[in-house]
């Protein structure tokens, strides 16, 4: 792994930005590793949760945003609950996803972006998830047409995949949520 060159390789203010968005001070972390030890998905992560925090502390924006770890975070908040320094780690992961989507660096993880995008598009239009539509949209976006096909067949046979998407009553409420998030993000963008 290549060496960190300090302070040159850092993006000044990155740690502060993450702290502000996440509503928690990443510099409070003293790297005990309890978050990584208790994380249920850490085995699949390219960087352990404590390493993500460490890189954020050192303003290593490019390296952090190229990681998949914060996309894999299941937001179970085990880490936040257990942290002795009260660092809200799950919120940090959220903040990183937000920064990543906005700055387009998610290109480094195209499938994850495709998955999240497909999910949000469907929920916005129908108010709830339609598994088959989600699968189709994700497959088209990720261009991975036949991956996991055996799983798809099993789901189909058990009647878990509905052909016609269901709709909920309060779709306009969901649309409202999306609108407010967009407005909030525009405001955030304006502030920066």
């Amino acid at each position, binding site marked *: 792994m290549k*060496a960190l060159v*300090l302070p*040159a390789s850092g993006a000044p203010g990155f740690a502060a930005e993450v702290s502000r968005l996440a509503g928690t001070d990443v510099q*409070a972390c003293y790297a005990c590793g309890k978050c990584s030890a208790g994380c249920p998905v850490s085995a699949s992560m390219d960087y352990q949760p404590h390493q993500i925090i*460490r890189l954020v502390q050192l303003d290593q924006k490019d390296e952090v945003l190229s990681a998949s770890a914060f996309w894999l975070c299941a937001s179970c908040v085990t880490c936040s609950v257990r942290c002795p320094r009260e660092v809200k780690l799950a919120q940090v992961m959220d903040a990183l996803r937000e920064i990543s989507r906005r700055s387009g660096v998610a290109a480094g993880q195209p499938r994850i972006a495709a998955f999240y995008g497909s999910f949000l598009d469907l929920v916005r239009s129908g108010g709830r998830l339609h598994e088959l539509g989600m699968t189709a949209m994700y497959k088209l976006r990720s261009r991975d047409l036949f991956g996991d096909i055996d799983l798809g067949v099993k789901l189909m046979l058990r009647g878990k995949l509905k052909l016609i998407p269901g709709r909920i009553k309060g779709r306009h409420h969901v649309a409202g949520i999306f609108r407010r998030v967009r407005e909030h993000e525009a405001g955030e963008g304006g502030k920066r």
Partner: protein
Amino acid sequence: MPRIGVFVCWCGSNIAATVDIGQVTEAAAEMPHVVCVEDNKYTCSEPGQASIRQAIAQHGLDRVVVAACSPRMHENTFRKTISAAGLNPYLLEIANIREQCSWVHADRVAATAKAIDLVRMAVAKVAQHSALTSSTSPVTRRAMVIGGGIAGIQAALDIADAGHEVVVVERSPTLGGHMAQLDKTFPTLDCSACILTPKMVEVVQHPKITLYAYSEVEKVDGYVGSFKVTVRRKARSVDESKCTGCGACWEKCPVKVKSEFDLGLGTRKAIYVPFPQAVPAKATIDREHCIYYLRGRCRICERFCEAKAIVFDQQDEIINVEVGAIVVATGFQQFDQAAYGEYGYGEYPDVITGLEFERLVNASGPTEGKIKRPSDGKVPETVVFIKCVGSRDEHKGVPYCSRTCCMYTAKHAILTREKIHGSKVFIFYMDVRTPGKGYEEFYRRASEEDGARYLRGRVSRVYPKGGKMVVLGEDTLLGRKVIVEADLVVLASGMIAQPDAQEMARKLGVSYDQHGFLTEAHPKLRPVETNTAGIFLAGACQGPKDIPDTVAQACAAASKAAALLNREALEAEAMIACVDEARCSGCLWCEPVCPYKAISAKTISERVGRRTLTRSVAEVNPSLCHGCGACTVACRDSALNLLGFTNQQILAEVEAVCP
């Protein structure tokens, strides 16, 4: 006929689990002169002691054996017990059936047999005991404090406030020590000089304190309550009684020398005071650099001294001081960073020590408090601090933690961020150790509020590149190499013993550890006493210590010294060597063997037939003798005997166990 009582202790299950107490008591009852045997769950407890006192009265005992733990634990306890019952305290013998029997054996039968043997030996020995009395010696109610840093200052003030005279001996021209060189002090960031200089002034103004600055202890004779110390007052070439410290001399002096106080970062004159608030504010001529001493002319200082205080032909003065107690507060020195070639200290001017950083950041320092790097005077933007340089490194002979560096580096980080706007601070560390009140919070402040970036790992190399100092290290939390391009590198130097600490220890007759730090009598229970009675330790001469701990230890040493000086007279050791003059041939082989200089020759007159002959014999000074027994081994005539361990008593023990 002696009447001996034997008291066997269970020590809960400590002894009773391995030794059959019943068999021991039965066997003891059969031993010669034993008239009473008892056993107790805990003999040292109040009921246990009461049973001894009761038995002494009931059975008319005149000697007591306690079979229990080591005499180091409770010999004194039981001496007091039998003394309270009217016996001489030395008519006691302890059979150690715990440390030397039950604790080290597993076989109950064999351990019981050994315990019986140990009791048998004790009974045989105590039968030979005689009453001993100790002599008393007067106490000189004056203390000496060696060293005038914060430890010495605090100890001197406390002893003086307790009402005793104090003589302070400081080898540099001023009080203050290392603390005077510091800028701010953790964890409260008070200015070091602001809290120190009032105490320095208090020392010279205190009616009970005599200060000998620029003086050194040459020799220490005597013993607790009556030490005779020889002090060399080095020639300042200035009459202290006349010098007003006006400064005319050092303003006019043409010779500039690197200032020791500023660690070579600034200059002073050949006639100087080390720093403006120096106490005493008396000038000193540095004869190695003064033109007059080198070439025989100049004398400018003399011309401008209105007080006529310059004395070029002043000589060192030897004075003798009698004191009852001595507090050693000789401090530490910084680890020599040149030992780490890979960090380039001494080679690259922008690699400095923590203490040098203190001078750079200090408002009265060579840069007037502006942090400038030594090479080109530029204000550094990126500063790297490297911790544990000369600490926790066995390869460099310093396996211990210097205890102060984590905190002073956090302080340096805070000061850097405060003084240099927009600066970046990186700290390489192995562990962050903050065991003190408010210490962890202070460290968190450095990293959270003041934005110091802590990198866990030891630096492998520092080298210059394009006007920067490149620091190569590892962030072990990430498992990544780290390269920091710094403008200034500060090495957090560890603390090591003074270069002459061992020499001082030998003068005082106290012990020191493998690193040259003076050793306390017990690490937990006698932390400020030495193994030599009447000599106490304060501050970093005993081991690395920060200011709060140093002051606390100085207060403790002062209270011990004051308690000693409060006594009218001191009781000497009763178990000392004594000379059988009839047997002594006067060879005096014993004299050089005695580590306490307690033996000397004495002339006696004897009548042989009708003639009176005079001859030399050895004499033991009871105040000096510690009862170590070295002389008894050296004596060719068996004329020397250690009271309480006479040849007769020891042979009786041998006889008892190997009949």
